[in-house]
Structures are given as C-alpha cells and as structure tokens.
C-alpha cells in the first residue's frame, strides 16, 4: 500500500478560474491509497513547498502528486522539494492540469473539473508503480580529444589545457594552423594571421598538457560521455619525427616538384615538404604519390642529405589508443569545388581564381610575396572583378545558405589589392552586402570611400576570354544598366562547405549533420556548442560558416563546456533508462538493432540483452519492440501506462 499525498495548485486563477480545485481535492482524497489531498494558491511558492514537506513528514507520505502546470515547468522543483525531506525524487509526479486542462477548456468549467480529476487519478495510478530510482554515476576521464588543428581546435585545446586538463589534438595535415594561416590579412583590422596565429601554434606545440598528433586521423571512437576510447591513425610520414630537427636540408635537395596545396596550386612544392615555414610541428612528410623513389624506384636524395638518418622509406601507418572524457569536433571548412560551377569559366581561364587563391597571391609570405601577379602571364592586374555568392544563396543550383564570410573578405581583398596596386580598380558584383559584425560596416564604408571599390548590385551573366582580357558581362540592377568590364583577374567568392572527410568522420562519431554536412548542434540557440550526443562539442566552421571571431568564441565556449564536465569526478545520468528482465528475455536481438545509441548488446553466453546504462538515453524504442515484453523503460513501465489507460477509458 502506498501513502500518497495530492497537492492541487490554484496557480492564482490560471487553474482555479476554470477547475473547481476544492471539489477536485475532495474527490481525489477518496481515491485508493491517497491519504491526503489539499489545494493551495501557489504550490511552487516557498510556503507551498513547505506545506508539501510538512505533510510528507506528518502523514508519512511515500509518494506525492502535484497537480499543477506542465512537468516541463516544475517537475524538477517538486522532485527537489520531496528529496529535501528524504523521499526518493522519482516518487514525485506532476499532473498537468493547467496547460492541458484549465487553459484549453476555459468555456467548459464542469467538464474541465472532471477531466482534472481523471488526469490526477491516472497520475496516481502511475505513481503507485513508480520505483524509487537512483541516478547512475559514471567516472569521468579528465582528458579531452580535439579533432582539427585550425584556429578553432587551437583555441579550444589551449583553453582546456590552460585549465589544467590534458588535451590530445589530432590534425590531419602535417602542421596545425588550418585555413587561417593561408590568409593574407584578416578583417576588419588587417592583422596578419601569422602575427596573431603563429604564437598560438607555438604555444600548442610547447604546452605540457597538449599532446599534438599531427598527420593523424581519428579512426574509431567507442564509449560514451566521460569514457571514450579513441583509436587514432598516425599516417606514415616516412620521416622519423623523433630524429628530425626540421633543418629543411632534405626539402632543398628534393628534385620533385608538385603543385602546392597550401598555396592553392599557385606555386610548386617538393615531394618532401612542410606546409609553410612556421609549421608546428616543423617536420616534413614525404608525399609518396609524387616522390621519385616511391614512383620510379630511384632517388633517395633526401635520405643521403639527412645527417640525422631520419628518413625512413619503410615507415607504415601506426595506431595509438587514447582514453578521453570529451571530444571537440573542429574540422572546419573547405571552399566548394570550383569545377562544379561551369558558368564562370573556372578551370578554363587561369585568371579566374577563388578567394583562397587570391589570399595566397596577396599574402606577404605567399608565392608572389604579396604582389598579385596574375596566374596566366604574371602581369599585374589593373581591373579586378569580384563575384559574390558563387554557390551560396543559390538554392536552385547549389547551396541555399549564406557563407557569411565572403562579403567581408571581399572588401578586405579589394582593399589589400588596392594597397598593392594603387592605380588598379576593383569591382564587386553583389546580391546583398552583409556586414553584421563589430566594426564590419565601418570597414566596408572605408573600402568604398577610401579605396574606391566599386560595388555593383547584380549578377554576372557571362565570362569569356578576349585576348589577354576576361570579359565580364553583368547587370547593375540599381540603375538597370548592362555592365561590361574588361577584366584582368576575376575572383569568385565560393560557397563554404564542410571540410573534406567531415561527413565520414561524423558517421564514425555518430553525430548528426544537416543536409549539407555541417554538424548539428543540440539546440540552435540555447546549446550551440554541444552536440546532441552527450560528450561531443562543436567548434568553428564544422558547424556552420563562421568568421574567425565567432569561431574563436565558439571554441572557447566548447572548451568551457568541457571544463565544466571535467570539474566533476563523476557524471550523473538520468535513471529513466531501459531495463531487461533476464528471466524473460530470449536474446532475439531485435532491440540491439533498433537502439539508436548502440546501448544494447546480446550477451553471447547468457543469450540475453545487456544494456549499457551509461549509453541508454531512455527513448524506450526497444521496449515497444520487445516481443517477449522483457524490456521496460523505468518511470514509464508497461503496467504504469496500462493502468493510466484504464483510468482514462473508464466512464
């Protein structure tokens, strides 16, 4: 026999204005196993909660129903109330007689009163079968994994490491830095990224709490929040990085020449190479697809020139395993594949380039040392046309979203171009100009006023070659005129897309992505740095197009989430999870297949389903599918639901 107390809230007139609360209290006090029922003006107020506490003690209640607003409002409040006087919090239930009764049946007061009684009775039936539950505790491994060594991953790693926790930073390239290191200058302050980002890279490289695994990729992740096991592939670099000092002599002597990815194919690199001179770690790798020894069987010049004997052509991929408690995914972006856009002559004309290529041409450390010699003939371009929204905001052909950074980087590029070529002219074809950050609008105005960038509102219809010029046909929709420009260089602001391989990684990590492959946050406004899967956090452009300040802010946000996770020795998990009756289970395995969290495994020896309580999120899908009825969702057990149905179906 239970000793149940029922507390009915007036909520001022919100409930009492429609439902006859006195009558309800009287009717439910006669209900079986109810030893006390009362009503009160505001149950959630301090005196209201005190009354519940006193009655629990006085009447020796072992379960409490509060008939009030929706459980989403005050379930936690009242569970804490009864817990404070020694009751198990899960022996407290809410009967929703406000949102789903008094507020929606305001014109039928008598029927609303009857309905309120029924709702309370059904909840009493549920409570009768509520077991006291204890939140599950799991220990936390206080080490974090950060995937991606761009500015997002760098910032997140430094923040976590500075809080005193160990970080494993995995970067697929041989150096951290990401796209930021490719940039010429950064808007809206025109700082050089080398000046602001390389010190951070060095910090990462030297931080005692950061284990940097460059030229590595995450192969496999198992486990759950607080207890992940990660397998990392360390790709063969063919250079023993422990011996190598990064002197660079091997690179000097390498005879192979390959288009440089870091310079966006505008210059050549060697087959043994580092990404850029300030690389962290500053160790080369051999590109086996282009190395003469690997392709033709002869050469080994690098080996001969390495006095430290660091070159090792026999090196193979190796694997390391790490235990971590939280994972930050900061895999960044790529620009949309230009070959996909046929209409702007990319690929056909050398002097049609994308934003990142122009960044390299404008970068003081780039292939042209900051003077934007055009790719075809090395002339200095005097007329440069920038085209905005190529691939972005184009739902019919490519991507419907705004890539967010292009408006700003185009202003910046046009400005830096003008600084390099003062007698040149920059034209920008735009759809709308979106400069919505601190100092951004002022930056645009400066570009227009001081650097005389000419903004033309309209799309470009055609680009074709005319001698050594590129003819650009477009429209100025503000004046209604056709525009024709004889350009020397055309720059396309390509859409930002998730980095190559991010989709596959998301599948490995069991993270959800949107239609375009950007990672999905737990809540677009209130939980923007968390993923829906506990223990995973998001930073930077892997989640959506972002500029550097936003990326850094999100990375710090993700890092502080990790810190707060690590501030506890144990994590508590809602005990609303599935349970197996091993006597009944026949081990058919239907539940194992259905579970979206891989929380169920069939024990081969016992032939029964085993649930990992830390992985179970409590959806109950397995319970509904179990043909033998061996699975039950705690707090929503079959008998509880059936008894509620019985109450509701009664006359």
């Amino acid at each position, binding site marked *: 026999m239970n000793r149940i107390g029922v507390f009915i809230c007036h909520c001022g007139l919100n409930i009492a204005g429609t439902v006859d609360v006195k009558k309800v209290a009287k009717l439910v006090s006669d209900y079986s196993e109810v030893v006390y029922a009362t009503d009160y003006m505001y149950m959630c107020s301090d005196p209201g909660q005190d009354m519940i506490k006193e009655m629990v003690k006085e009447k020796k209640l072992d379960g409490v129903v509060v008939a009030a607003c929706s459980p989403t409002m005050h379930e936690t409040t009242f569970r804490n109330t009864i817990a404070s006087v020694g009751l198990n919090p899960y022996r407290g239930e809410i009967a929703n007689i406000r949102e789903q009764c008094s*507020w*929606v*049946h305001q014109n039928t007061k008598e029927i609303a009163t009857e309905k309120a009684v029924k709702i309370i009775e*059904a909840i009493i039936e549920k409570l009768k079968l509520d077991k006291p539950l204890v939140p599950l505790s799991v220990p936390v491994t206080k080490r974090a994994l950060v995937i991606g060594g761009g500015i997002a991953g760098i910032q997140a790693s430094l923040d976590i490491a500075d809080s005193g926790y160990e970080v494993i930073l995995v970067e697929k390239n041989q150096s951290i830095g990401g796209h930021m290191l490719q940039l010429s200058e950064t808007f809206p302050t025109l700082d050089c990224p080398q000046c602001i980002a390389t010190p951070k890279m060095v910090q990462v490289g030297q931080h005692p709490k950061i284990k940097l695994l460059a030229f590595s990729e995450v192969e496999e992740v198992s486990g759950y929040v607080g207890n992940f096991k990660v397998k990392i592939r360390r790709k063969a670099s063919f250079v023993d990085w422990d011996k190598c000092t990064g002197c660079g002599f091997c690179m000097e002597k390498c005879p192979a020449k390959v288009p440089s990815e870091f310079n966006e194919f505008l210059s050549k690199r060697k087959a043994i190479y580092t990404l850029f001179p300030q690389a962290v770690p500053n160790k080369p790798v051999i590109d086996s697809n282009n190395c003469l020894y690997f392709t033709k069987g002869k050469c080994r010049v690098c080996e001969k020139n390495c006095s430290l004997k660091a070159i090792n052509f026999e090196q193979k991929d190796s694997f390391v395993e790490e235990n971590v408690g939280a994972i930050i995914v900061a895999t960044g972006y790529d620009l949309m594949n230009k070959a996909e856009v046929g209409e702007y002559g990319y690929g056909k004309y050398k002097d049609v380039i994308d934003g990142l290529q122009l960044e390299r041409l404008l970068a003081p450390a780039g292939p042209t040392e900051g003077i934007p010699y055009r790719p075809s003939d090395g002339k200095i371009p005097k007329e440069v046309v920038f085209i905005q929204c190529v691939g972005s905001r184009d739902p019919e052909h490519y991507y419907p979203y705004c890539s967010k950074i292009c408006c700003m980087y185009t202003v910046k590029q046009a400005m830096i171009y003008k600084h390099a070529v003062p007698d040149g002219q920059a034209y920008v074809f735009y759809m709308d100009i979106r400069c919505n950050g601190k100092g951004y609008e002022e930056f645009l105005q400066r570009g227009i006023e001081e650097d005389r960038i000419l903004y033309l509102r309209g799309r470009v219809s055609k680009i074709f070659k005319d001698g050594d010029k590129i003819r650009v046909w477009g429209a100025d929709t503000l004046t209604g005129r056709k525009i024709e420009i004889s350009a020397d260089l055309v720059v396309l602001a390509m859409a930002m897309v998730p980095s190559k391989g991010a989709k596959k990684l998301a599948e490995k990590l069991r993270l959800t992505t949107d239609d375009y492959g950007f990672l999905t946050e737990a809540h677009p406004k209130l939980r923007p740095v968390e993923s829906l899967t506990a223990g995973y956090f998001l930073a930077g452009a892997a989640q959506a197009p972002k500029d550097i300040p936003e990326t850094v802010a999100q990375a710090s946000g993700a890092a502080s989430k990790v810190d707060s996770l690590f501030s506890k020795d144990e994590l508590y998990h809602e005990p609303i999870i599935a349970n197996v009756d091993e006597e009944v289970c026949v081990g058919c395995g239907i539940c194992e297949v259905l579970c*979206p969290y891989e929380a169920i495994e069939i024990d081969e020896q016992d032939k029964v389903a085993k649930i990992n309580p830390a992985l179970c999120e409590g959806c109950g899908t397995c319970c*509904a599918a179990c043909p033998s009825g061996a699975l039950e969702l705690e707090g929503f057990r079959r008998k509880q*639901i*059936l008894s509620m149905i019985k109450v*509701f179906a009664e006359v």
Partner: protein
Amino acid sequence: MFEPKIIGFCCNWCAYAGADLAGINRNQYPPNIRMIRVMCSGTIEPLYVVKAFKEGADGVFIGGCHPGDCHYQSGNYKTQRRIVLLKRAISEIGLDPRRIRLEWVSAAEGQRFARIITEFTEEIRKLGPNPLKLSGVENGI
C-alpha cells in the same frame, strides 16, 4: 450527443510540448482527449493502443516529432511503421482504422495541435462509439 473518449499519447519533446503551447496560447479544443506523456512516440507499444480500445476508448491519438526531428534520432519512423500495421490489424477486428490518428506536432505548433484535436474529436464523433464496447468485448478479452 455522443461524447467520444479519446486517449492521446504524446512524446515528451515535441507533441507534448506542442500541447503545452496550445495551453499557453489558450487555443481551446474539446475536452474529450486525455493525454499520456511518453518519452518518445517510438515507445508506444501496439499493446497500448489495443488496450485503449479494449477498455472502451473511441479513438487513439499519437503525437510525435516531425520526421528528422526525433529527439532520439529515429523513434518516430519506427512509430510510423508500427501504426501502419496496427491500423490494418484493428480493421480486421472490426474497428475503423481512422480511429487511430498519428500526427507529427512540433513544440511550436500549439495552434495546430488544438486544430488537429478538434478535427479528430469531430471525426470520432461521426464514427460513433467504439463497436467493441457495444458488443461487450471489453469484458471478454
């Protein structure tokens, strides 16, 4: 006039929150529905629906998250498949499949929730009382 008895099952994250929003908006709907909160529509066993009819309910409403929005990734798809089969099964025992209604209701669709419940209540009213109840089956099985 015949007042149907409808039992509703709503998932905690979308449909139940949608029903709450109907309240917050004061969108009125007929009081015939009585709601049971479950964590996910995917946890609604066919047994629950059958039990509801057996106990004398005239209609059963099931509310879940919109496709792609399931809090638990894919529970609503599983519900959808189960309900298709269940409708077929209940028509075999002489119940109109329209007595079961599955709807996706988001936490933002309070007004829509109220409209759906109003429509469904009217539909059940037209269909009349649960024939199993009249034939006394509820005492038999």
